[in-house]
């Protein structure tokens, strides 16, 4: 079958009534998650995994996986969009990728152009989503064919590259990021070793034989961690919300933002494909680029529509681009995609080159639903902008206990064991303290998800070579990956030594 037939079949999957509903719920909840202060895309997706597994419980496994991933991906890009709403209306970015949007977006809102800023952000996000979709269609097949030629040595090195890239860019201290990565990998070794069948680090505690559940740790670290933060630090946004008068942008607005949207989408997409460099960097770089090439750079920071259009397109382009290494290579490049990958594994669907052969319904259904989801976002957001602005005012007194209750329900519904509830609370407390002290959490989750696969490939490679470690450097592709991995760690250190400031990615 050709790519187009696969895509056609994907649309058939995505257009099934229940999947349309899932996509709709996904983008709706995602936008709300992005708008609400305190929950970002990562905790939003983590929190919804249990809910989706409940919703899809009755369906056959393949369809359940497709529906679940459609909903979760909807949450992911919905949250990307929702984050911009608070940046523009309140000057408080809902997540780090819309920090730059606030610079010009809030100024526009103060000038009474909030509606135009919000709708340009929606149009930009939609366009970026379509760009990412088209690129995904063209790149998916060749990339997964290439990846099929990889042996265990290449896979091992590629995953090491993925981990190094994420650790190198996460947080301010690389030592801390690496500690979190190694800690995540170590946690993944708890349980029955699936090569030799030996129980490791279980000490006859029956709950540990299965290993620590990824979902419990992710929900605990991200969702509960953030909840504990807002309980302890009494976060409150007292700022007045800007009024929205006119929703649709003027013709001049559209003309001025056409170029930035196209450039932002492309740049965002390519940054998103790189592991480790996520939506935050994408929006940041596209803003700088627009300012550099603008004929009136002095306009920026005073309500230039280009300053909203470019970063908003870029961060959505990046979240689409991040899907490529996840789907074709099975390597998540960011915290959120690591969580999506964990969700797929829960459904027994292994992302990677075989995904397109073994589960075309899931892979192409997801790709097609990204198009439909982005269209929904556009249709949903233009008229509902005022409703979403209301969500910002949800009092935290209701929000915080409800998030805790949903986390408990989700973890218990999937695991049916109180052990996981205690683990959840412990992870929440650890998550708060670690994040507060600049220990990035995304590498830990990434290590936890990738750990078993890295170990399997390492041991398969070493078994094939009779314990000879040189297999990793004599295979050219593997060597190449390792060299890039080392460079990824060394270059920021060298730049820092030369006194340059290094931009870091706060959240995936």
């Amino acid at each position, binding site marked *: 079958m050709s790519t187009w037939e696969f895509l056609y079949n994907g649309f058939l999957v995505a257009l099934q009534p229940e999947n349309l509903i899932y996509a709709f719920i996904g983008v709706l909840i995602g936008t709300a998650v992005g708008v609400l202060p305190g929950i970002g895309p990562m905790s939003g997706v983590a929190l919804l995994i249990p809910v989706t597994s409940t919703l899809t419980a009755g369906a056959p496994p393949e369809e359940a996986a497709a529906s679940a991933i459609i909903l979760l991906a909807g949450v992911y890009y919905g949250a990307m969009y929702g984050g911009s709403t608070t940046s523009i209306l309140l000057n408080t970015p809902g997540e780090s990728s819309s920090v730059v949007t606030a610079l010009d977006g809030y100024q526009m809102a103060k000038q009474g152009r909030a509606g135009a800023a919000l709708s340009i952000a929606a149009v930009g996000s939609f366009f970026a989503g379509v760009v990412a979709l088209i690129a995904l269609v063209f790149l998916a097949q060749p990339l997964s064919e290439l990846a099929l030629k990889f042996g265990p040595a290449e896979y091992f090195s590629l995953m090491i590259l993925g981990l190094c890239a994420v650790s190198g860019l996460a947080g301010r201290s690389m030592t801390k990021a690496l500690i979190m990565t190694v800690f995540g990998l170590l946690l993944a070794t708890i349980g029955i070793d699936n090569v030799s069948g030996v129980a*490791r680090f279980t000490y006859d505690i029956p709950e540990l034989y299965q290993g620590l559940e990824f979902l419990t740790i992710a929900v605990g670290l991200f969702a509960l961690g953030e909840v504990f933060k807002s*309980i302890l630090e*009494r976060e409150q946004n007292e700022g007045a919300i800007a009024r929205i008068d006119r929703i649709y942008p003027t013709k001049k607005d559209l003309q001025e933002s056409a170029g930035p949207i196209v450039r932002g989408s492309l740049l965002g997409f390519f940054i998103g494909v790189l592991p480790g460099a996520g939506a935050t960097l994408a929006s940041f770089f596209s803003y700088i680029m627009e300012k550099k090439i603008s004929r009136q750079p002095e306009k920026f920071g005073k309500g230039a529509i280009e300053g909203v259009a470019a970063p908003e397109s870029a961060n959505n382009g990046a979240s689409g681009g991040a899907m490529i290494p996840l789907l074709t290579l099975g390597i998540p490049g960011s915290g959120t995609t690591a969580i999506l990958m964990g969700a797929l594994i829960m459904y027994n669907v292994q992302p990677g080159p075989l995904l397109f052969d073994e589960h075309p319904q899931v892979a192409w259904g997801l790709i097609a639903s990204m198009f439909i989801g982005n269209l929904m976002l556009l249709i949903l957001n233009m008229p509902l902008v005022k409703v979403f602005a209301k969500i910002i005012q949800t009092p935290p007194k209701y929000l*915080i206990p409800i998030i805790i209750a949903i986390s408990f329900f989700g973890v218990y519904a999937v695991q*049916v064991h109180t052990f996981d509830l205690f683990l959840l609370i412990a992870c929440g407390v650890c998550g708060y303290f670690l994040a507060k002290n600049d220990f990035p959490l995304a590498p830990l989750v990434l290590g936890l998800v990738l750990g078993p696969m890295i170990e399997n490939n390492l*041991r398969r490679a070493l*078994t094939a070579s009779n314990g000879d470690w040189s297999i990793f450097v004599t295979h050219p592709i593997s060597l190449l990956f390792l060299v890039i991995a080392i460079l990824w760690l060394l270059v920021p250190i060298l730049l820092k030594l030369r006194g340059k400031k290094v931009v870091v990615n706060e959240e995936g």
Partner: protein
Amino acid sequence: MVSLLLLFEGGLEVSRTFDRIASVLFLLVGIFFIMESRKLSASAYGSEVGPDLFPLGLGILLVLLSLRLMVETFRYPSAEMKTTKLDVKRFGIILLAAILYAVLLEPLGYVLSTFLFLVVAFQTMEKGKWLSTIVFSGLFSSGVYYLYVGLLKGTLPGFPL
């Protein structure tokens, strides 16, 4: 551009004490995994590579990294730390309530334990407005239970007795 960079650098607040404690803890975790993985067999059937190799290597890495972090903490600039006032009391009550919620979930059943947890948590967040607290907690706990167990045929602990 500089101001943009500052946005990313903003709120830099490194706690020397926390990092030192953390580095010691991670060091201990690393040593633990090294010691314990040496008890695992060093080879598997048909392979020279056993289940001990990966955790052993990672344990060593973790030890090295935590030593590096410890060294780094001595180089931190001794700047005055910005202390944010933490609402420890509120956090303590909700944490305790969450632990009790986990303990009581199975004996008391989902609806009752969730209701109790939500009432305590809502009142801790903001005192007063008992009616809305009770109505809201009741709606959430029974709503989730009937949706999940009644409609979706899932399993949650029911009612005591």
